[in-house]
């Protein structure tokens, strides 16, 4: 599939041929840094001073590049489609190669960054367990109750924020949990699931 670049986007990218291809490579590095950590106007100012162009032009160039890389990574477009998509910008061959290199080198990383933006529920992180036997309590003496105590760690978001739940269960419920979850594991291996997984590409 080809990328459809808007008029405004093309205009922002039009400053790229005005600088050296090596500078475009540097812009690409900055664009990736900004995708990871957020933008910083100071860097735009520094670069604009060095290149002798306006801050706005640098900002538009870098952000245009960010958007180009994000969109191509989002759709995981092929090398040919990427080249065809940037062809419309009318850049030279060398500059197009620099852009392609930027895209190919960073596609995996950009997809990982984008995947962090998706709203998600707490995800399983780790489980620790121990076997306890309750021997007595305030209301009952001479007890012998086996209990499995578990610490379930969930990651609340992509920044690694964790929450911990302490849960308990008895041996027979534990066996029930195991058999229910084994059925869940088996479900992904059924011919129905495999057919769907194979056909949605």
């Amino acid at each position, binding site marked *: 599939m080809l990328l459809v670049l808007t008029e405004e986007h093309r205009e922002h990218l039009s400053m790229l041929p005005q600088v050296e291809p090596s500078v475009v490579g540097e812009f690409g590095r900055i664009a990736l840094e900004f995708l990871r950590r957020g933008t910083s106007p100071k860097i735009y100012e520094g670069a604009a001073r060095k290149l002798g162009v306006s801050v706005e032009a640098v900002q538009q160039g870098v952000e245009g590049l960010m958007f180009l890389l994000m969109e191509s990574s989002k759709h995981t477009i092929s090398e040919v489609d990427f080249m065809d998509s940037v062809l419309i910008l009318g850049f030279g061959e060398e500059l197009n190669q620099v852009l392609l290199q930027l895209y190919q080198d960073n596609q995996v990383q950009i997809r990982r960054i984008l995947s962090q933006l998706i709203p998600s529920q707490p995800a399983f992180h780790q*489980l620790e367990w121990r076997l306890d036997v309750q021997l007595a309590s305030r209301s009952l003496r001479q007890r012998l109750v086996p209990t499995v105590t578990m610490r379930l760690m969930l990651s609340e978001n992509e920044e690694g924020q964790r929450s911990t739940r302490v849960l308990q269960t008895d041996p027979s419920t534990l066996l029930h949990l195991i058999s229910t979850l084994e059925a869940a594991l088996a479900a992904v291996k059924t011919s129905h699931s495999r057919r769907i997984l194979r056909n*949605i590409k």
Partner: protein
Amino acid sequence: MELSESVQRGLQSLGDQTVLDRCSFPVVVDACFRSLLFSRGDPAVLDLPELKHLDKILLKQIHAAATTFILEAVKHNADKSTISFSLEELTFNTERVETFYTTRRKVSNSIFGPPFSFFFMSSSIGRGPAHIKDVSWRLQYQMKNGQLDKVNEPFYLISLSTETGGASEDVDFSCTAEQLQDLVGKLKDAAKSVEKASQV
């Protein structure tokens, strides 16, 4: 079983034929057993037409003493002879001891059967971590989202139903097939340990 003075006094009143006649005694004993299992602190448990003629305060003292006695007996897993001995010491005649015992059986029979119902009731007192009761799951396939096309990853949504002190709560989380495999593996390890420990 060690009983405090006020409990002893209350039980003596319960056994005293001049305080409770032949008709009121079984009604009071029945109300005491029932109040522990079913009423959940309902203040109307002693408001019975058969007990209208009795002194309210005395009745409350008897109720408090009898329920304490029942809970103490459950706590120490007291057998029939221990219970009979304690009651006889507190001036219960043989007939009243027998009535006390048959009422206990009659009331607890109505749910789980003796003596488990009182045992369950006592074991539910106190605190502990949330107890997992059940688990449900859903297998999903993420195709795309607002940020990414072609994600194409199967994942599970797991919901653990838990209970703490009568209140239930669900613990929900998502996991990949590998993570679920890891989770099941750990639970199996735990189950194996339980099995080994039970053979010792």
